[in-house]
C-alpha cells in the first residue's frame, strides 16, 4: 500500500485482503479448533446442560398448569428468539443499502440462522403454557371481567394464537436457513475439492451444483435480495405477534401500540451488538485481523448509537402518552412495569441499554476502534436481557388476565435457582450451537470479502489519501 503520510485515517481502517490466499486461510481457520475455542465450547456446553436441568426441575415442581412460574423461561425464549431472528437482518439490510462495511460481518450474522432452529424447539412448551383467550370462568353480567381477553386476534380463529405464532417462528427459522444456504454456497464450492472427510461430503451435498457461472452469480444476487426483503418483513411481523400475544395480552389493560416497534428495535440493537462482539473476538483472537478493518466498527457503531437513541425515543413515547392522561389503569401499568414493582430492573435496563452505551459510543475516537462498539455491545446485551425479563416475567405474573385492567399493582417475581439455570442455559445453548456452526461453515463470507477487495482501493486526491469506491450499478 502507498504511504500514509497524508492519510487522516488510522492505518487499519480499510483492509484489502489478497484474494488468492483468503480462501485457503479461511478454510484452515474453519477446520482448526484452537484451545480457547474448545474451552468456550465446554463452558457453553456446561451452561446448556444446566439449562436443561433447570427446565426439567421446573417442570417437576410446577408442571405446565401454572404459567406464572415460567416467566423467566418466556423471558429467555424471547431473548434468544429476538436476537437470533434479528441477526440475519444485519446482512440483509446492509446488502440492500450496498454498504461495503457489511462484507466481513455478513456471514457472522447469517450464521445465527443455525441457532434459529432452537427457537422452534424452545417455543413448544409455551404452546401449553399460554392461557387461552376465552375466559373459562365468564358469566354474563360479571363486572370488570372480559369474556375474551384483549388480543390482536379478532374473531379468534382456530388455533390462535398458539399455533399461528408457531407457524411464524417455523417460517422464520426456515427462511433464515435458506438465506444462509444461498449465501454460503459459493464459499463451500471453493473448498469442496480441497477438504476431505465429512466436510467434503457435506460441502458437496450443499454446494455441489455451484460452478460460479455468470448466470449462477446473478441468480444468487437476486435470490439474496428477494429472500432478504421477505425475511425482513416476516421478522417484523413475527416480532409483533410474539410480543403482543405473550406480553401485552397477558397484562390486563395494557394497550400499547408502540410495544412491537420497541421490541423490534431492541432486537436490532442487540443483534448488531452481538455481531460486533463476535467480530471483535475474531479480529483480536481469531486471527482474522487481515479481513476486518476498523471501518466495519466505525460504520456499524453509528448504526448502533442510532438504534440506542431510537430505543430511548420509543420508550419515552410510551411513557409520556400513558403518564400524561392520569388514567388509573394506565398509571398502574406504569407503576407495574417501570416505577414500583420492577423499578430497579427498569432503571438498570435504561442504564445498560441507553446511558452507558451512549456515553461510550458518542466519542468518535472510540467509534473508530474495534473494542468500543464491542464494549457498548456487552452492556446492550445485558440490558436487553433485563428488558425481556421485565416485560415477560411481568406479563406472566400479572394476576387475573381476564380483568378489564390492572386494578392492583402485582408484586415483582424474583428468580429462583431453576430460573437462573434456565437463563444461563439459554445463553449457553446459543453460544454452543453457534460455535459448532463456525466449525462447520466458514465464519467469513469469502466471496463477499473478495468482491469488496475488487471494488475498493486507496487513491490519492491532491495531497490526501482516500478510499476509492467503484460504483457498478
Amino acid at each position, binding site marked *: 500500500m502507498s504511504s500514509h503520510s497524508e492519510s487522516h485515517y488510522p492505518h487499519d481502517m480499510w483492509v484489502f485482503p489478497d484474494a488468492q490466499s483468503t480462501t485457503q486461510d479461511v478454510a484452515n481457520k474453519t477446520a482448526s479448533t484452537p484451545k480457547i475455542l474448545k474451552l468456550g465450547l465446554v463452558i457453553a456446553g456446561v451452561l446448556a446442560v444446566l439449562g436443561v436441568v433447570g427446565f426439567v426441575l421446573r417442570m417437576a415442581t410446577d408442571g405446565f398448569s401454572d404459567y406464572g412460574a415460567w416467566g423467566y423461561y418466556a423471558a429467555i425464549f424471547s431473548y434468544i428468539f429476538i436476537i437470533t431472528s434479528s441477526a440475519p437482518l444485519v446482512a440483509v439490510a446492509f446488502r440492500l443499502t450496498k454498504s461495503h462495511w457489511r462484507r466481513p460481518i455478513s456471514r457472522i450474522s447469517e450464521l445465527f440462522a443455525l441457532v434459529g432452529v432452537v427457537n422452534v424447539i424452545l417455543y413448544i412448551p409455551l404452546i401449553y403454557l399460554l392461557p387461552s383467550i376465552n375466559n373459562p370462568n365468564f358469566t354474563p353480567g360479571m363486572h*370488570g371481567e372480559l369474556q375474551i381477553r384483549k388480543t390482536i386476534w379478532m374473531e379468534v380463529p382456530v388455533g390462535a394464537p398458539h399455533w399461528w405464532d408457531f407457524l411464524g417462528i417455523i417460517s422464520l427459522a426456515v427462511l433464515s436457513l435458506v438465506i444462509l444456504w444461498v449465501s454460503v454456497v459459493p464459499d463451500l464450492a471453493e473448498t469442496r475439492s480441497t477438504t476431505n472427510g465429512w466436510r467434503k461430503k457435506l460441502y458437496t451435498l450443499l454446494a455441489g451444483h455451484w460452478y460460479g457461472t455468470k448466470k449462477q452469480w446473478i441468480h444468487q444476487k437476486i435470490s439474496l435480495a428477494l429472500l432478504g426483503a421477505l425475511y425482513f418483513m416476516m421478522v417484523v411481523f413475527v416480532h409483533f405477534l410474539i410480543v403482543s400475544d405473550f406480553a401485552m395480552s397477558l397484562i390486563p389493560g395494557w394497550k400499547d401500540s408502540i410495544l412491537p416497534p420497541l421490541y423490534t428495535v431492541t432486537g436490532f440493537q442487540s443483534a448488531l451488538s452481538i455481531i460486533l462482539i463476535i467480530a471483535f473476538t475474531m479480529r483480536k483472537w481469531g486471527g482474522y485481523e487481515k479481513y476486518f478493518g476498523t471501518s466495519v466498527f466505525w460504520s456499524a457503531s453509528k448504526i448502533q448509537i442510532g438504534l440506542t437513541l431510537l430505543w430511548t425515543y420509543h420508550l419515552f413515547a410510551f411513557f409520556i402518552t400513558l403518564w*400524561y392522561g*392520569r388514567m*388509573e389503569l394506565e398509571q398502574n401499568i406504569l407503576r407495574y412495569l417501570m416505577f414500583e414493582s420492577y423499578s430497579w430492573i427498569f432503571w438498570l435496563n435504561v442504564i445498560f441499554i441507553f446511558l452507558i452505551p451512549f456515553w461510550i459510543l458518542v466519542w468518535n475516537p472510540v467509534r473508530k476502534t474495534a473494542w468500543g462498539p464491542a464494549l457498548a455491545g456487552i452492556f446492550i446485551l445485558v440490558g436487553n436481557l433485563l428488558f425481556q425479563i421485565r416485560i415477560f416475567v411481568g406479563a406472566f405474573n400479572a394476576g387475573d388476565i381476564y380483568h*378489564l*385492567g390492572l386494578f392492583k399493582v402485582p408484586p415483582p417475581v424474583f428468580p429462583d435457582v431453576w430460573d437462573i439455570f434456565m437463563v444461563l442455559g439459554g445463553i449457553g445453548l446459543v453460544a454452543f450451537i453457534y460455535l459448532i456452526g463456525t466449525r462447520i461453515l466458514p465464519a467469513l463470507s469469502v466471496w463477499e470479502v473478495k468482491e469488496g477487495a475488487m471494488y475498493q482501493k486507496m487513491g490519492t486526491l491532491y495531497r490526501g489519501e482516500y478510499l476509492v469506491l467503484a460504483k457498478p450499478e
Partner: protein
Amino acid sequence: MVSNRIDHKWGMVVDIDKCTGCQACVIACQAENNIPLNTKDTFLQKRVNEWIRIERYWEGEYPNVKARYIPVLCQHCDNAPCEPVCPMYATYHNDQGLNVQVYNRCVGTRYCINNCPYQVRFFNYWHPGWPERLENQLNPDVTVRTRGITEKCTFCVQRLRRAELKVERQSGARLNDEALEKGNYAPACVHACPTSALTFGDQHDGGAKIRNYFDDVNAHDIHHEHERETRGYRLMEEVNTRPNVIYLKKIDQHPLGKGDGHV
C-alpha cells in the same frame, strides 16, 4: 386570598330517577349565565351552546319505546383532563373544588374542549347578540363572553361568591344547605328543577344532603361498585377524572329487558 375563608368543596347530585327531561334547568342556566340564544340556525350549524343539556336516548322498538334522560353538565373533575392542556392556564382547579374558566386568558385553542370526555365545554364561534330589548334581561353578575372563547358551567360561581359575601363575611354564618336554599344561592339549574332532581351542596359540610351519596361513592371505588349502598355512580368512572358530580341510578319499574333498567 382571603385567609379566613371557610373551606368548601362543592358537589352536585343528579337523580336520574326524578328527572323528567323538562329542560327547565337548561333554560334557567341560559338565563342566569347570559348564554347566547340557541336559534334554529345554531342547531343547523351544530353549534348549540348549553352548559347543562338533557341527553335523550331511545330504548326499545316501537311500540315499546322508552325515552331516557340524563342531564349532563360540567363535572368539575378533580383530575380534569381539560386543565393540563390549556396553554394559557385559562382553566384551572380552584381551592373549592371548582374547575374554573378564566375568560380573559382564553385564546380559544379548543384543546380543552377536545379533551373533555363529557363534551361539556362550548366555544363561541360567533359574537353573541340578543334581539333588541332582550339585552335588558342579561345578568349583570356574569360576563358576556366575546367570540373566540371557551366557556362552560361554573356551578353559578357568581351566586356562590355573592353568598360568601353576604352569609359568611357579613354575618359570619356558615354557608350550608339551608343558607343556600334560603338565599337562592345554589346554581340556577338546581333551583329551577321542578322535581328536585338536582341537589347541590358542600362535601365538607357534615349535614349536607349530598354527603350521604358522596361518602358512599367515595368509599367504594369502581371495582367495588356492587358494594355501594346508595344508587350513586359517576359518569365514565374508568377515565379516572374524579368528578364532583354524582348521578343516581334510575329504578325502572317496568324495564324493557335490557340490563337492570339504569342509564
